[in-house]
């Protein structure tokens, strides 16, 4: 595959790890693929996968975290020049903090033999990802401890992300539900302790299996977790997800590059335009668009507004989970103030879908700086009050100190990112380490904590809001003049002024609006420091008006997977405190 446009700024063309891999495995075992993902992409044979994983985990400056793992149905992909033959691909993205770079390992699979060794032994958080790949593509992972569906109900037929699985409701027979079908579905939801290797009783105790959710006041959405209890002590637990699954990745394959933007808003529904950012940045990398400084500043400003908004929701509900009734109302007062600003600038509240390929939807309205100033002058005193009234409260401290604590090492093992990782003392904030959208121009600190307990995760987010206010203030004071959208033929929607010149411009405009931009075949990827951790979009274009494969990696998914490792031996109230402190929304988990 050839790259026609120049690599975007900051992209690297060679990495030390490529040499190290070649030295160890030899050139025959590896195929390197050139992409715009800003990381080395290497294909290895299925038989050598485990060796490669072991090597990467043990190499100098090791790849400590399995950041993402998913699959691609390659059967309909037309532009695969120079790549190994594959019907299906499984890709593994590993992250090294010491190198501050990633590597993507891909394995080609044939349709007739969809089996691949599980890497749970090397990276424990591969567990859920491998189950999801099985669920979505029907690829079996040999040696996996519990190979079942995870997002779809266990009674489901077919594997939704396969290209031969229909994407539209009209392609199915009309839906009907019989009594029998309902009973079967109900029966399938029953929890079977033996299937998870749990005992129902020991010689001197019978255990209670408590079904917490999917409807429970503190489950933060349709999330179910089954607890094995001895009294109120949690011996073990099994999180069950998928109740909020909408198939966003499948939808991306049927939407134009432009019309998928509103769907991204709904991934982490507390993040608003923050969700648009990784998607449009990844599309811009594919299209080779450089956005204007003004557009970058506007994007950063609005994304940070939503970070504050999301953290306020976190704070209110987190304290409510600890039994404090009032803070959530104060937090919602503040959120209303944030929404007034957001609404005036974007025209919407929760789901503005406001970023565009190449910039934002429209320029800032008159008087926007007055609104922003009003908000950033209001917030600091409120944050101090939250800290004084709640985080200094003896009961809050007693409920949260040393509760559900984990170390940096455990955080890496489980793929924990964002504030939950920084609460263990790891200084890793993408805005600093891998600046995107102009974050390198801003002066702000990355708050850190050291204990990695519930208290630290709460405190850290209050401090993050203060830092976000600093960034917003800098945006306000130094907002560059100029266009709010790049001057590039692939931006959406195309500028109207250029339409009515002559018939050619009219036709171009018509095509750009109706089926949208056509992007050259390539792969790109953008990670951002979203409200809850690292969120990324890994896009594969096959030279069409739509994405061939859109992988949405969300932070909440691995955070939920980690719960049993943290909660064993805790009490039910500790679990509730931990659930509050993770800061997840189920839309972000299930997509």
């Amino acid at each position, binding site marked *: 595959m050839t790259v026609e446009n120049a690599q975007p700024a900051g992209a690297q063309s060679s990495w030390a790890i490529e040499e190290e891999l070649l030295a160890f495995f030899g050139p025959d075992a590896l195929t390197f693929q050139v992409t715009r993902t800003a990381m080395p992409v290497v294909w290895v044979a299925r038989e050598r996968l485990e060796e490669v994983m072991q090597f990467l985990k043990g190499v100098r400056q090791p790849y400590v975290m399995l950041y993402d793992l998913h699959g691609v149905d390659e059967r309909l992909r037309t532009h695969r020049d120079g790549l190994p033959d594959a019907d299906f691909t499984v890709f593994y993205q590993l992250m090294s903090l010491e190198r501050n770079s990633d590597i993507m390992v891909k394995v080609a699979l044939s349709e007739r033999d969809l089996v691949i060794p599980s890497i749970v032994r090397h990276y424990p958080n591969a567990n859920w990802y491998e189950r999801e790949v099985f669920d979505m593509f029907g690829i079996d992972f040999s040696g996996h401890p519990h190979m079942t569906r995870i997002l779809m109900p266990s009674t489901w037929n077919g594997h939704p992300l396969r290209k031969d699985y229909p994407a539209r409701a009209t392609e199915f027979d009309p839906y009907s539900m019989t009594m029998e079908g309902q009973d079967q579905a109900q029966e399938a939801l029953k929890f079977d302790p033996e299937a998870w290797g749990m005992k129902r009783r020991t010689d001197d105790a019978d255990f209670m299996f408590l079904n917490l959710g999917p409807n429970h006041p503190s489950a933060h959405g349709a999330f179910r977790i089954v607890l094995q209890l001895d009294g109120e002590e949690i011996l073990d637990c099994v999180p069950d997800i998928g109740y909020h699954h909408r198939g966003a990745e499948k939808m991306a394959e049927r939407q134009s590059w432009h019309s998928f933007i509103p769907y991204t808003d709904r991934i982490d529904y507390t993040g608003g335009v923050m969700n648009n950012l990784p998607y449009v940045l990844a599309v811009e990398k594919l299209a080779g668009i450089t956005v204007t400084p003004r557009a970058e500043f506007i994007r950063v400003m609005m994304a940070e507004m939503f970070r504050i908004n999301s953290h306020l929701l976190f704070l209110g509900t987190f304290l409510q989970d600890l*039994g404090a009734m009032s803070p959530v109302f104060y937090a919602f007062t503040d959120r209303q103030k944030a929404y007034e600003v957001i609404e005036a600038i974007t025209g919407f509240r929760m789901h503005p879908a406001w970023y565009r390929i190449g910039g934002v939807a429209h320029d800032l309205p008159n008087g926007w700086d007055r609104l922003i100033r009003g908000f950033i002058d209001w917030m600091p005193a409120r944050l101090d009050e939250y800290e004084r009234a709640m985080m200094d*409260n003896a009961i*809050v401290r007693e409920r949260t100190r040393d509760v559900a604590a984990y170390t940096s090492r455990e955080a890496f093992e489980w793929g924990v990112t964002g504030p939950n990782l920084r609460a263990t003392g790891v200084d890793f904030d993408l805005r600093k380490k891998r600046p995107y959208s102009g974050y390198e121009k801003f002066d702000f600190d990355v708050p850190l904590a050291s204990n990695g307990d519930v208290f630290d995760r709460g405190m850290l987010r209050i401090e993050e809001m203060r830092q976000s206010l600093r960034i917003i203030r800098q945006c306000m004071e130094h907002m560059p003049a100029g266009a709010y959208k790049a001057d590039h033929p692939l931006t959406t929607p195309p500028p109207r002024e250029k339409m009515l010149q002559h018939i050619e411009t009219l036709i171009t405009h018509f095509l750009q609006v109706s089926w949208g931009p056509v992007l050259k075949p390539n792969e790109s990827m953008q990670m951002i420091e979203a409200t809850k951790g690292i969120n990324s979009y890994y896009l594969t274009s096959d030279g069409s008006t739509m994405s061939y494969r859109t992988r949405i990696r969300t932070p909440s998914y691995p955070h939920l997977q980690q719960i049993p490792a943290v909660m064993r031996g805790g009490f*039910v109230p500790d679990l509730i405190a931990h659930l509050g402190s993770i800061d997840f929304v189920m839309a972000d988990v299930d997509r």
Partner: protein
Amino acid sequence: MSWLTPTVIDTVIAVVQAIVILLAAVVSGALLSFVERRLLGWWQDRYGPNRVGPFGSLQLAADMLKMFFKEDWIPVFADRKIFTLAPVIAMASLLLSFMIIPITPGWGVADLNVGLLFFFAMAGVNVYAVLFAGYASANKYALLGALRASAQTLSYEVFMGLSLMGVVAMAGTFNMRDIVTAQADMWNIIPQFFGFCTFLIAGVAVTHRSPFDQPEAEQELSDGYHIEYSGMKWGMFFVGEYIGVVLISALIATLFFGGWTGPWLPPIVWFLLKTGFFIMLFVLFRAALPRPRYDRVMSFGWKFCLPLTLINLLVTGAVILLNAPATS
């Protein structure tokens, strides 16, 4: 009209008084749901119920109507008899305790010489309501709630009794009227400050009010022991809790703040003011405090409150003995 002897008249007056106090207790308990919501709204930068009637004052009527028309559903897996009995006990035991409270010199249902002991007995019976509800619901959340409730109530009742023994020792009686008159020189709040503190804590715990609402713990057990109740049965738990709040507030006013006594204003006003103040305090607790963990609540009770009440009782006894005139 020969049957209208003074005894009969006294009896009739007593019965009327009793009925008035009973109704007042029930109505104030029910009305408290409205008062609490308005107060919470006020403290939380919002309005609270303000749509039905002037300032929302008829909210209670609307709530009652709704509750009466709700389906009074008993789960098929529940133990019907015990399930029905539980809310009755919850409401009745606390209502009966109002009997011993002297409201003014002339008002009060019964002037028992075992006054306080009767309250302790009723508080003890009240545990059964939660226990029965949790057991009969055949629901895991209800069971956990009932477990918490019975453990908590039992351990807090131990020192609730002891916390009042100082008051009893100083007055030399269990009779509530005599305790009030014994406070003529000085309210018990001053010599019995630690008794007051521990009784307040125990009172909050026994009525399962926040921050000791472990048995209900919405965020953890999603309402705990009464999770399966609906309609009027649930309403009785609900009103029962508020009656508990009124009762404990009235007891605090009577035992530590001189009951109806006070200058200038009539006794009934003083009694209502003092009681109302402590009711507000209960609501403020709920607005201000998070919920401690259940096992910490227990250890706080056993390891801190219980020793404190014992020391308080010892010191009170020593002081009384020192001040007592020599008998020999």
